[in-house]
């Protein structure tokens, strides 16, 4: 096999130090190149041939596994950071390896190696094979490249963007933030980019390659007033081409962050206890992610540990509620051309007109339920095996106006930004942390609120969605991720303004 291919790749594309590289235009996008009659990236760069894959898969199936796959990954991450007015920190990471999975029923054997040599891969495959204990099975004789649509077209490979092009973005965020308000005392800004190349080869003959870009620009602003400090952050990005980051994007990010910091000096504590909650559009979709999304991941259901385990086909919400998990939104953080076990990215209807329709499946759960996989098999990296995960999760718009929704709440709170959330799958109890919002008094938005945790129960909350507005907004942040089983994957969120009749607000006033 070829030697030293990783090094030659680094020479070609720069990796951590791409400053001197010239950005080649890819008018067709890398994706189309991969589909053309050419060797794939991992074969041409690392010498990973079909014959080699077949030998490794055969080893993974040597003890009777009924399915095996190989997941090759080469990821290059870079980020530059500004602190105290200067872009004075840079970080980089190169991750290369292959994860080898053998499956027997719902049992998983897994090994990985960072050395793409045949002996190392065979050793990892032998580890994976131990999940089974019968006679050998054989992989398919031929691998067929899968065809799929490209949901994140690129003009330029991120690894060829010179660092000199990134520095002004970060500096621009800093300068703009200070321009916008005399209250700003500190700004941290950073630009993160990741180029992840993956190849999945399965024992049933599927072979896919993809290139997943991910990038985002972040601002953190600390404002000071009368000896008090407040902090806010915001970010913008996704699976974008570098050309997305225009001066207008920089300016919008700075304004959004400064506005969020300055308003906090007027924030009040909301009352504690149950009350109506209006969720503003966009990132508040974290509510769906926690309240229903995780519970609809099929591994939890096939094991019987999700509160939604017996609810398929049942009415779980008002008829105007339709909830989608989608890998096909162009350029969004959770979008996927193909999932991490070679299944095409797709749009999955979880709740349709209030009725629970489908779980999110990987190959194992799809086999269990005798349905087609939904393209939700994901993993953090080659070091992890696939489990069902969300992509971009959102609710379709309703008929009302945002003003009507707020008016109908009467007295309660309005959620603008959500920082994080968590769910207990079996009980359906969830929480999400409101970093910014407003009080609603007599159907009108009044004083700002901040740092409030909200608790609810997923099935109960779904039934309590009383009105949805016509303003569905997908979060345009690029930093969103979801943790499960010790793995973090990028995900997206979306929601129209909607009213939940009652949730527990964690204030401090009785």
């Amino acid at each position: 096999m070829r030697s030293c291919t990783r090094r030659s790749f680094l020479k070609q594309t720069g990796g951590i130090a791409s400053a001197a590289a010239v950005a080649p235009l890819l008018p067709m996008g890398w994706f189309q190149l991969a589909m053309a009659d050419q060797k794939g990236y991992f074969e041409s760069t690392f010498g990973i041939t079909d014959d080699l894959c077949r030998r490794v898969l055969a080893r993974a199936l040597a003890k009777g596994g009924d399915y095996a796959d190989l997941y090759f990954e080469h990821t290059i991450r870079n980020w530059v950071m500004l602190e105290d007015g200067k872009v004075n920190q840079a970080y980089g990471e190169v991750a290369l390896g292959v994860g080898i999975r053998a499956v027997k029923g719902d049992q998983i054997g897994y090994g990985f190696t960072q050395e793409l040599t045949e002996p190392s891969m065979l050793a990892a495959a032998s580890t994976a094979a131990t999940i089974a204990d019968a006679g050998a099975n054989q992989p398919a004789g031929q691998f067929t490249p899968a065809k799929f649509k490209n949901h994140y077209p690129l003009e330029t490979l991120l690894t060829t963007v010179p660092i000199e092009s990134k520095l002004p973005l970060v500096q621009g965020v800093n300068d703009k933030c200070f321009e916008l308000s005399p209250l700003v005392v500190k700004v941290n800004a950073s630009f993160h980019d990741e180029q992840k190349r993956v190849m999945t080869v399965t024992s049933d003959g599927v072979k896919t390659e993809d290139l997943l870009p991910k990038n985002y620009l972040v601002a953190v602003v600390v404002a000071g007033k009368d000896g008090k400090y407040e902090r806010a952050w915001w970010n913008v990005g996704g699976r974008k081409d570098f050309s997305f980051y225009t001066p207008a994007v920089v300016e919008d990010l700075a304004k959004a962050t400064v506005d969020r910091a300055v308003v906090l000096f007027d924030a009040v504590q909301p009352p504690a206890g149950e009350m109506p909650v209006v969720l503003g559009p966009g990132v508040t979709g974290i509510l769906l992610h926690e309240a229903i999304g995780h519970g609809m991941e099929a591994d939890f259901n096939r094991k019987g540990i999700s509160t939604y385990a017996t609810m398929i086909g049942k009415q779980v919400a008002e008829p105007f509620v339709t909830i989608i998990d989608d890998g096909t939104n162009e350029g969004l953080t959770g979008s996927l051309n193909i999932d991490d076990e070679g299944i095409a990215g797709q749009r999955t209807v979880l709740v349709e007109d209030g009725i629970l329709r489908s779980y999110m499946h990987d190959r194992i759960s799809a086999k269990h339920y005798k349905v087609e996989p939904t393209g939700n098999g994901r993993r953090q990296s080659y070091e992890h095996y696939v489990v069902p995960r969300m992509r971009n999760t959102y609710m379709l718009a309703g008929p009302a106006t945002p003003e009507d929704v707020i008016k109908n709440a009467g007295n309660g709170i309005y959620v603008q930004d959500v920082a994080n959330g968590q769910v207990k799958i079996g009980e359906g109890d969830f929480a999400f942390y409101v970093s910014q919002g407003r009080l609603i008094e007599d159907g009108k938005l009044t004083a700002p609120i901040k740092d409030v945790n909200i608790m609810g129960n997923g099935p109960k909350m779904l039934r309590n969605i009383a009105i949805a507005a016509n303003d569905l907004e997908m979060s345009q942040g690029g930093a969103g991720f979801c943790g499960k089983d010790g793995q973090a994957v990028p995900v997206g969120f979306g929601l129209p303004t909607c009213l939940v009749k009652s949730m527990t607000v964690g204030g401090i006033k009785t």
Partner: protein
Amino acid sequence: MNREMYDLAGWAIKTAKAAGADDCRVSISSDRFVEIGYRQRKPETIKEARQKGLSISIYANGRYSSQNTSDLRREALKDFLSRAVATTKLLAEDPYRTLPDPKYYEGRPDIDLGIRDAGYETLTAEGRHAMVKTIEDACLTKGGAKAISVTASQHDSYAESVVLTSNGFEGYRESTVFWAGAEMTVQGEGDRRPNGYHFVASVRKDGIGSPEKVGTIAAERTLDLLGARKIDTETLPVIIENRNVSRILRGLLSAMYGRSIQQKQSFLADKKSEKIASGRLTLIDNPLIVGGLGSRLYDGDGFAAKKRVMIEAGVLKDFFVDWYYSRKLEWEPTTGGPSNLVIPPGKRSVKEIMKDLGRGVFVTGFIGGNSNSTTGDSSVGIIGRLFEDGEPTQAVAEMNIAGNHLEFWPKLAEVANDPWPYSSMRTPSLVFTDVVVSGV
């Protein structure tokens, strides 16, 4: 000592300097691990691998960057290092970025921290499987007919690292970690399927104790969640269970870092030597505990490890200030972050304290929530049990506690006698009075 790792780190420093670095810190790490999970009395997952990596911090022309790679072949590394140095030189100057003054490397304790189990090499696949089967069996037995699903698992790892700097620091560390636990789901009322767990962790195999006990406790904790409901919003005493104290403590710690202070993101920035908590709170950072999960002889800067009292009888005594932020703040550095955090235990058990309090909430888990290091505001969901007349009576869920750390910690009324041994945060259960518990 691993001569090969030392040689590679030394070579990386020489190569980076030849490429134009003025100084650098190189860390080479390597580990191997085995994970086994059982469900329905058969292996659900088996995972095993070895990993390695090189990290380098580069100081060049008054500029700084940090890079990682897992490709340790010399030729590939040479290329990687020269590009890393070139990248560094394109950044803005930062006069505060230097390697530490070597005087802080001095005085490293010459003791065996006992963080490597010499028996690691003797572990067998059969032994690992047998332990996990025992955990699963105990959990299923205790769960009885209520059990829907049990997943028992174990993880063990052996890690080595070498750190060298161009100004004379050398460090080598070998450690082992053993983890075992079980997660259980039981049938509750209607569609509720309470899910609970228990785990133990130690640097030594014998530190995880009886596998039967691990499984049994996981089942008991899950069964305790049955029948949970929310109660009225009211002001009550709250006991936070030992294993969960770390969650609220992190909110306090987030404001104790040099970076938080220098970047105006610390509500404790001007509180040194002031009382920030009840006199019952003392917090010690002790890196030298034999067998501690957070034990170390040197920190990330290479500073010799020392025991430090961070909070004494409620008074804030010290911050976690690394070399870089000490220079920016013009303060004396301490250490960049905690090692083993210890709250000295009190005298009474949780049971005894409950009897005295009569009515309150015993918090056995948190859900969601966050804490703002700039303002000290915090809000977090709670799971636990209501106790009345000194006895647990009712599981509670969908509830929340909130407040500002500067108002919350002064309400600490008692420290229990039960430090949690399976974490680098050795925290006993803590009792707070007059806490608003949000529910209905």
